[in-house]
């Protein structure tokens, strides 16, 4: 999500104008062969407008643009691609749905298609084709992609957010490998704090890092915002148990974590001030790119420790390709979405993403991007391990609003900073969540 530094933005912005975004001859040949056989033959004179979430990895953007360029040359469909930061993109996507005009395809974020399912084109044929060809979708992709039995968006990728840690500091604190359960994790954090190399997790209104780790900790102890029938059940003994854990955990954090937004932990980690945090692969990518070999070599990634529930309870951010049913060229739009997910393009996309973005289709698990650098390996499995933010209920307005209003983040932060007792914080979160769910 927002795990990028300003320097990165400047770099990608400057490089974007120079980037190689034209299809290679090989890619073009593949596109022609694919287009001839494709089950979606574009309407004559078709034109498409695509609005995408603004890249933060230059090589990913180049791979994407090259795929689009090959598609245009092979099919004759002109494609205009605009990009936008996702906080501006979400209202635009909603307005396009409301007024029935605008971009034909939007690469959005989270489960926004579920806020206006009636504006979405049924893309079941595309998803069934892709699922059949590439080993099937992970359950999380189906959860985000489908509504009432049909696919309303094409899940394009999932952005992993995992534990980032300094190997030497963790070892000094008495752990050879990163703890895989929450009890040991707490001990580790306490030891790290005692030895003067504390870790920290964002407690501010950080929409990426904040949401990811707080949902993990809530779920790891069996707490959840809603049950299967969307009844608000956050004020539960399980939540309180999780919050009691958070109360202890919060004491070990580096000073200032209460104010952290998405970018702070990247900075603190790269400076060597923070030993453990949660993040995408961007800290590591930045360390490698900027030649900070000491940190790049000493850091690694790990899955979130498993809590008392005994299974992974991770949250990673999903991105959908939303095809609007107001498009005049539904076949062209379907062809483009299918094309982007086909092996040649998607391989290049994953390669260009260097671990930031992961695959929702099982067949891409074998992609070399995950194994050529062992520190990327854990990010391979994020789709397999991720739950949706609506867990255990259904996607829609209430779930999105509770998420956007930082109900879980605030609850955890209140206890971690000692501002409220676990019981008070849970009662309060229950009230806040009920406001959105009981409409």
């Amino acid at each position, binding site marked *: 999500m927002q795990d990028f530094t300003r320097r990165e933005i400047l770099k990608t912005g400057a490089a974007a104008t120079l980037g190689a975004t034209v299809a290679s001859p090989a890619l073009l040949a593949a596109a022609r062969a694919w287009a001839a056989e494709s089950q979606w033959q574009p309407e004559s004179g078709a034109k498409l407008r695509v609005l995408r979430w603004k890249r933060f990895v230059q090589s990913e953007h180049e791979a994407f643009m090259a795929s689009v360029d090959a598609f245009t040359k092979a099919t004759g469909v002109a494609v205009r691609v605009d990009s936008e930061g996702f906080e501006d993109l979400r209202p635009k996507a909603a307005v396009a749905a409301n007024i029935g005009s605008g971009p034909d395809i939007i690469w959005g974020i989270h489960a926004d298609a579920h*806020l206006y399912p009636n504006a979405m084109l049924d893309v079941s044929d595309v998803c069934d084709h892709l699922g059949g060809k590439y080993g099937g979708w992970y359950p999380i992709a189906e959860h985000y992609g489908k509504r009432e039995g049909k696919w309303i968006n094409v899940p394009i990728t999932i952005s992993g957010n995992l534990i980032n840690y300094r190997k030497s500091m963790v070892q000094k604190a008495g752990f050879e490998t990163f703890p895989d359960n929450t009890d040991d994790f707490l001990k580790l954090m306490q030891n790290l704090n005692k030895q003067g190399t504390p870790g920290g997790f964002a407690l501010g209104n950080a929409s990426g890092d904040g949401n990811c780790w707080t949902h993990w900790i809530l779920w790891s102890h069996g707490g959840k915002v809603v049950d299967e029938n969307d009844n608000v059940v956050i004020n539960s003994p399980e939540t309180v148990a999780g919050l009691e854990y958070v109360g202890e955990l919060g004491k070990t954090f580096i000073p200032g974590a209460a104010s952290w937004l998405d970018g702070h932990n990247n900075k603190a980690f790269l400076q060597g001030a923070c030993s453990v945090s949660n993040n995408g692969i961007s800290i590591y990518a930045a360390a490698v790119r900027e030649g900070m070999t000491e940190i790049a070599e000493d850091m690694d990634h790990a899955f979130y420790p498993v809590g008392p529930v005994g299974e992974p309870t991770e949250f990673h951010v999903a991105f959908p390709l939303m095809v609007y049913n107001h498009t005049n060229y539904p076949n062209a739009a379907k062809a483009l979405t299918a094309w982007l997910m086909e092996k040649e393009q998607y391989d290049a996309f994953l390669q260009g993403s260097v671990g930031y973005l992961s695959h929702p289709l099982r067949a891409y698990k074998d992609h070399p991007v995950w194994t050529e650098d062992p520190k990327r390996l854990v990010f391979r499995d994020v789709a397999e391990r991720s739950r949706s933010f609506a867990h255990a209920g259904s996607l829609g307005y209430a779930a999105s609003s509770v998420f956007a209003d930082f109900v879980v983040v605030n609850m955890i932060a209140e206890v971690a900073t000692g501002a409220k007792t676990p019981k008070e914080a849970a009662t309060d979160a229950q009230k806040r969540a009920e406001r959105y769910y009981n409409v």
Partner: protein
Amino acid sequence: MAAIGETRPVDQVNFLARLNNNRNLLGLLFMLPAAAILLLFLTYPLGLGIWLGLTDVKVGRPGRFIGLENYAWLFEDHIFWLSVFNTFVYTTAASVIKFALGLWLALLLNRHIPFKAFIRAIVLLPFIVPTVLSALAFWWIYDSQDSVISWILIEAGLLDETIDFLGQPNNARASVIAANIWRGIPFVAITLLAGLQTIPASLYEAATIDGAGEWQRFRHITFPLLTPIIAVVMTFSVLFTFTDFQLIWVMTRGGPINATHLMATLSYQRAIIGGALGEGAAIATAMIPFLLAAILFSYFGLQRRKWQQGGRDD
């Protein structure tokens, strides 16, 4: 027929001439473009905002009229009340300090100092820099690990650990207020300086001859003659501060745990990010009474001519 043919042009001329002479009508005509712009770009959005606050409209989904339900909800929402509290603390503290420091700065600048014009121009800098830029600068100044303030204090041996500027609720409030003050002082200072320059020097001379000291001259000449300007400046200052958004959004996003959420930032979070346009509009609408009170205070203050000229009200 011929007679009618002759009179008609005369009538027209008369009509145009009368039109030309009718100051009321002309005045109305001249005001029309401005009124149209006001209606289109101010009244309509304001009305729409108030209307949205009475509906359950979401981003991308039309709503229906639900009366005061949004307000009833907000009334029970402690985060809303926290934001109201924060907004008042923020506005009061920032406005009072901005006024005190601004007035002081204006008095200093009103003296004869070398490079007067240059210094006066420099003073305006914080006001000229785009808010987002200055907010980013403060974001770094208040950084939990790399704050320049903490660094200096630690290097000087006065502190052992970094100050958690934005991590503790009260620290965070004080920090964002300080940033707002830094940004707002130039406006107050320069406007008050303009007011100071309109005060005739002869009054001070007369007072000096009568044996008035510095404080007496300030208390009985400067301050009374400055009150009308003060009323205007403080009204604007309060309005700007009350509706502040950018500083908070860049530095804290309303955190930690909503301790710096102002009504404006909460409204944005709920309406645009959370998609609950109706509720966000209701929060924004709830700001109107307070803003109106500030305007009315200044309006009636300005209407009292005696008070304006330093006399007492009857």
